[in-house]
């Protein structure tokens, strides 16, 4: 479903992604793990038509995102690392807007919206403006929205960031059940190793823009002689903290946060 060959992205001096290759099978849940600044979001952006690779090749369902933008866009759903809902609109309206942009026929749009909002326990709140939602509710709504047009792949970039353990747990259960029901391929990133261990069938670990290991959780543990995935992760990526320059996305996040507070 996803095939990546020798993918490279450089931002001026910074080499965010250095020659990575991997593939994700249809219907698989694939975890893409790595420390802050490893290049996860940058890779997702290249897979989802938002960023052109410096070099290398990408195929989503056999299509190149650079040359078949709209066909590729129709085939994936995405939950970005940062929020992307319209706070002034209701949950229903956010779904409906998405469905219209993806040309989901009106009847199907209504049925799927009901099914997904019910699954993610938001149906009762469908007519509330999103600005009245908690962080967990917003995140669930984003996932529901990403699945509305029945994509073949869904990209989840740290979907559980800032959520409590109960919500995280439940969220993965819901994602798993959809993966089984609809055979949607799931490409996820998270900093919670136990989540990846639980839901992902295969895992790739990226560090400094390079893939340092890939395989099942058991294989990674065996390879490093570790008890848990977290230990395996630490032994593969080292335990030093990543020095990260505040990039423009970070600056933007801070601005948005400040703006929200001041309103």
């Amino acid at each position: 479903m996803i095939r990546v060959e020798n993918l490279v992205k450089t931002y001026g001096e910074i080499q965010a992604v250095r020659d990575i290759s991997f593939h994700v099978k249809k219907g698989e849940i694939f975890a893409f793990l790595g420390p802050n600044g490893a290049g996860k979001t940058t890779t997702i952006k290249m897979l989802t038509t938002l960023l052109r690779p410096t070099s290398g090749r990408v195929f989503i369902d056999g299509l190149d995102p650079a040359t078949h933008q709209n066909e590729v866009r129709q085939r994936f759903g995405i939950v970005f690392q940062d929020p992307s809902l319209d706070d002034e609109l209701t949950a229903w309206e956010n779904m409906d807007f998405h469905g219209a942009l993806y040309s989901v026929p009106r009847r199907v749009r209504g049925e799927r919206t009901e099914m997904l909002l019910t699954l993610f326990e938001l149906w009762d709140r469908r007519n509330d403006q999103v600005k009245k939602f908690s962080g967990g509710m917003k995140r669930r709504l984003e996932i529901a929205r990403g699945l509305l047009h029945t994509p073949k792949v869904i990209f989840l970039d740290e979907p559980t960031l800032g959520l409590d353990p109960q919500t995280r747990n439940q969220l993965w259960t819901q994602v798993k059940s959809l993966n089984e029901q609809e055979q949607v391929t799931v490409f996820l990133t998270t900093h919670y190793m136990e989540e990846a261990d639980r839901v992902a069938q295969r895992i790739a670990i990226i560090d400094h823009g390079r893939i340092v290991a890939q395989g099942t959780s058991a294989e990674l543990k065996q390879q490093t002689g570790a008890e848990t995935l977290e230990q395996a992760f630490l032994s593969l990526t080292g335990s030093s903290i990543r020095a990260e320059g505040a990039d423009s996305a970070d600056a933007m996040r801070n601005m948005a946060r400040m703006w929200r507070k001041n309103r």
Partner: protein
Amino acid sequence: MTTIYVLWLRQLKRYVRSRARIVASLGQPLLYLFGFGFGFSKVYEKAGQGNYIQFLAPGMIAMTILFTSIFSGIELIFDRQFGFLKEVMVAPVPRLLIMIGRTIGGATVALIQGLIVAVICLLAGFRPSLSSIPAALFFMLLMAILFTALGTAIASVLSDFQGFQMVMNFLVMPIFFLSGALFPLNNVPGPMAVLAAIDPLSYGVDGLRAALIGTSHFGMSIDMVVLSTLSVIFMVIGARLFSRIQL
């Protein structure tokens, strides 16, 4: 078509829901209308120019459209900062349609605000000629499209709010003050006349005056040609810049 419609609808919903914004944006024209209107009317009439409210009202309508349109365009920066723009940008639809939908939505909002101010002007004693209301509406629409497209173009190259203040001070305010919204362009000194002649809003104000009170500086057909041409040009530039946005 659906793309344009849903983006248009979104702008309208956001407008209707932001009551604070509606009230705040009407404050300024009210202030000018009553402050300048009643303050200057004696001076203006003594100078033999006729009724100042009659003269000022089209200027106030144009001003409202200018500010609302530019703001609607600039709202793009908000969408970018709050992340919603990403949702739109990964959708399988051409960016051109997104830009058109947004612009028509913003222009509709500006047109509504302009109409509200027109009603307020009527209540304040403004008496336009009714026969040319269609022409007046057409001028309002052209201004709304032109300045929303300009706002979108600007917002496409700005990435944060800091630039926004600059745009207000060095672009929008001069556009407003040089346009003849507050004073007649007939006897202004040479350099200012030149600036007024390159200010798009001058043609909007002038066209509105031509339609509503029957006086004009440039002539109604010139106003119409200039505004239509500029609307198309700004739409094209806006669409270009918009489709180049990198997230």
